[in-house]
């Protein structure tokens, strides 16, 4: 595991830019283990190409965000849902 693990607080600005809302306090459910945590409490790896958000309990990937030249690709397959 990378030593540069951050948490979901660190991507608050990015999520605000993409979704127009502050998602750090939004509960997010892991599709792998079902654990439900606020986005701020998820593990974030930001020193890879793009951003990878993992469940702090089972380590499954919940969200990936990759910025392309003209658009941004957000993969939410690992989440069962976000509550806003």
């Amino acid at each position, binding site marked *: 595991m990378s*030593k*540069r*693990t*951050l*948490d*979901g*607080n*660190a991507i*608050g*600005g990015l999520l*605000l*830019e993409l979704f127009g809302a*502050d998602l*750090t*306090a939004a509960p997010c459910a892991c599709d792998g283990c079902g654990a439900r945590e*606020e*986005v*701020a*409490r998820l593990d974030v790896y*930001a020193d890879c190409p793009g951003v990878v958000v993992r469940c702090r309990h089972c380590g499954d990937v919940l969200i990936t965000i990759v910025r392309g030249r003209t658009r941004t690709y957000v993969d939410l397959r690992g989440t069962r849902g976000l509550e806003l």
Partner: protein
Amino acid sequence: MRTLELEAAGWSEHRAGQHLDVRLTAEDGYQAQRSYSIASAPGEPPAITVERLEDGEVSPYLVDEVRDGDAFEVRGPIGGYFVWDADEAGPVLLVGGGSGIVPLMAMARHRVRAGSEAPMRLLYSSRTWNDVIYRDELESLDAVEVVHTLTRERPPGWNGYGRRIDDDLLREVAFAPTDGARVYVCGSTRFVDAAADGLVRLGYDPSSVRTERFGATG
């Protein structure tokens, strides 16, 4: 280490504990972006305290070069999780390591400015006495009980804590888990995990321990 007070057009009032993103753009279009916790209380202009990191891309500019009147891009305020509002009456425990003090300082200042009666205690881990950020202000802060621990070097005659935060130290300093305190822990990943896990072992509900991990990305 330098504190910068920002004049941000269109800034909406921040909450204590929030951060902002600073984006610098070079002449060739290269961009570098970093997050900084807001140190000032809500209602005051946003201020950030920046630690200069060798080899950093953004912090050397903010610490050494930026002058009054210079402009750069700021996004924020950001964050709805690691925040404390003065109308919450229960006790508050702040646990900070190194520059993790910054958002906690905003909470302490918020408590003073808003005239809150919430009991507030700060446990602050620094390497040496000289590394203590906001030292003079913390010394004069009557509204907040401040407990220091110095992990690397202690001044002569030091009678405070002199070790990294461990379960015994937390047991001595923290409110009893039954007091219903809200807890805010900020620092490096290792610091945050040690403090938060220790508090949960003491009996704190994990959901009452709010955490923010700092990455040293300069």
